[in-house]
């Protein structure tokens, strides 16, 4: 429950800083909706009706971009956050911005890409079957950056995505008095040291 509120609403962040929360949440929700909409490119065969419902999600791209710009603005303008930022923090935002903007440009301007072709390519990817790609520059930028993003996922701060689910301060159950939690290394140590502790502490029986 605690975890669900944290992941969906960013509860702790809301408590701490309303602006960061606003921009951060806008960005993540925008991203999520946009990603859902992208599923159409991977769906094998014809699209079921349900995809009409997600059509309006394309406007989420704006939420995402606004969120990103807000976050970037804070990172530059607020002295405390500037202090703690490394170059990679900016680069990551720029990367996301480029992806977001190039995507939005394709969708909302007359630079439409041949979506059918994209779909063939994307579905092909799932089966390791390399199809031809459209060659519009926006699209290439877009997809290239996405690949970069995926490549650095495991070695960058994007690890916060799985991280939030593993955070002990958020996912542990409060039952220490009722249940004995002991990690394997501590248990091993306990057994090994039993003898020595008896010597130092006197009898324990």
């Amino acid at each position, binding site marked *: 429950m605690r975890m669900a509120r944290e992941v969906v609403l960013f509860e*702790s962040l809301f408590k701490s800083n309303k602006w960061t929360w606003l921009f951060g949440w806008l960005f993540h929700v925008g991203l999520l909706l946009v990603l859902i909409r992208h599923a159409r490119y991977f769906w094998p065969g014809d699209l079921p009706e349900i995809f009409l419902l997600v059509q309006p999600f394309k406007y989420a791209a704006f939420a995402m971009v606004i969120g990103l710009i807000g976050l970037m603005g804070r990172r530059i303008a607020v002295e405390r956050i500037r202090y703690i930022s490394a170059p990679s923090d900016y680069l990551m935002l720029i990367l996301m911005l480029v992806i977001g903007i190039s995507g939005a440009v394709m969708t909302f301007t007359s630079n439409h890409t041949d979506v059918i072709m994209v779909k063939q390519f994307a579905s092909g990817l799932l089966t390791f079957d390399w199809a031809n790609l459209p060659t519009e520059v926006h699209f290439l930028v877009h997809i290239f950056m996405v690949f970069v993003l995926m490549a650095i996922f495991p070695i960058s701060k994007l690890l916060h995505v799985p*991280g939030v689910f593993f955070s002990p301060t958020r996912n542990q159950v409060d039952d220490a008095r009722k249940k004995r939690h002991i*990690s394997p290394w501590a248990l091993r140590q*306990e057994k090994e040291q039993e003898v020595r502790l008896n010597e130092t502490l006197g009898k324990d*029986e």
Partner: protein
Amino acid sequence: MADDFEVPKLPTYLEIPKMNEGVMAGDGPFKSVEEFQTPLGFPGAKVDNWQEVAINKMGELKSKYRSVQVFLDACVKCGACTDKCHYFLGSSDPKNMPVARQDLFRSVYRRHFTFAGKYFPKLVGAKELDDAMLDDWYNYFHQCSQCRRCSVFCPYGIDTAEISMAAREVLDAVGIGQKYCNQILGKAITIGNNLGLPEPALRDTLLDLEEEIEEETGVAVKYPLDQKGAEILLITPSADFFAEPHIDGLIGYGKVFHQDGVSWTMSSYASEGANFGMFIGSYDIMRKAALRIRKAALDLEVSRVMVGECGHAWRVAYSFWNTLSGVGAGADISDEHAMKLQNQLDSRYPQPQHIIEYTHDLIQRNKLKFDKSANDDRTVTFHDSCNVARATNMGGIPNGQFILPREVIKAVCNNYVDMERSTIMESTFCCGGGGGLLTDDLMEIRIKGAMPRMQALKEVEKTDAVDTLVAICAICKSQFSKVLPKFDFDPYMIVSAHQLVSEAIIMDKPQTDDSEAEMPIEETITETVE
């Protein structure tokens, strides 16, 4: 950086200060020497190959504690925590912003344990562990009271306290320890308490106390020591044995036990609730201290273990005793070590139990009578101690650790107000002296770090004429006695919760056989010593 610093002024509103780089730079607290290091198993002085030792230690901690690794990896530098630490608010040194504090450790972690940091150190802010960095570690990880306020506000729950503990553990491993903590730990694991009070001294103190109370109230309240077969073993911070305002709390516990008619005892072998092993991050030492309590419980054949008013003691007791020493419940049948003790303990009570839980329960069952007007000269507010507020629970109900102490206080006094909501409960500001910082050589950071709490207190002093501050933590009490006068408060306004209880409680004259007792336990009660 010694004595020539300014005591921060109390602002009307707590503002986020402009950063002042390096104001709190310095050499940190006094370093431990060989005499105190060796007994704990740490090198006596900085070892020659310290870099290697430190990096290996970091590797060990990373694999041992999931928390450390997740916290180091998950931070997105969102900055939400930057204005949450009382030490930053009070000192304006940017390295006291929680994430910047973590980054001292994280940058080294990145350099040695992550792909990006190994190959693109500049890009991700990875740094080498050099002398300057080590000095920064020592200085700034001793400007963190491990209060966990930052973790409440972090979207990933990143707990800087955990990183501070890890950093201090690495420092100890290379032979750089903090004198205050390590000296105290030496006493705690050899003599049994942080003050180094041996059994005869302790016994004398308690006898004096008994005399004093009898003179004052006409009731023979006992403070039993090492009494085999008692029902309750009380583990309380050793400060309770001698200093004001702590001892008034101890007087209160005794009166409550007396009124309940329960048999209880303290132990001279395990006469310390505090466990500084946590502050230096050492599982082994924390365990050694906890095992003394286990042994005392076994030797004295008690069926309940109870903890006095102490913040981090309650965290260690509540969250770790079960793991460390088996004081608790729910161990696996095959787990001999824990079962030996858990079979002896009475499972109808929470094990361990906090003294506030105990008194609260008696109040609920109408076992105690109070004359609330005895505290009418006071207007009281309550300071949530960080370790109680953010690392434990009481009464087994959500937020019980905030509710129970307040209910106890309100049961014994008429005038109670809370401080500003954003400075209490889970967002409480640390007193400024926790986490092993309660030493005179850290007075500057202690005073600066107390500022946010003092500011909130000043507010209620103005609006509600609050003149009494209650805390249930020995460190908070000592710290407040010292810093209150710096901010123009009366140093004696800080009291124990059980001091208020003690003042209002109506004592029966020597009890005869009270048979209407609906106490859950009907054992042959061997009343007090001799």
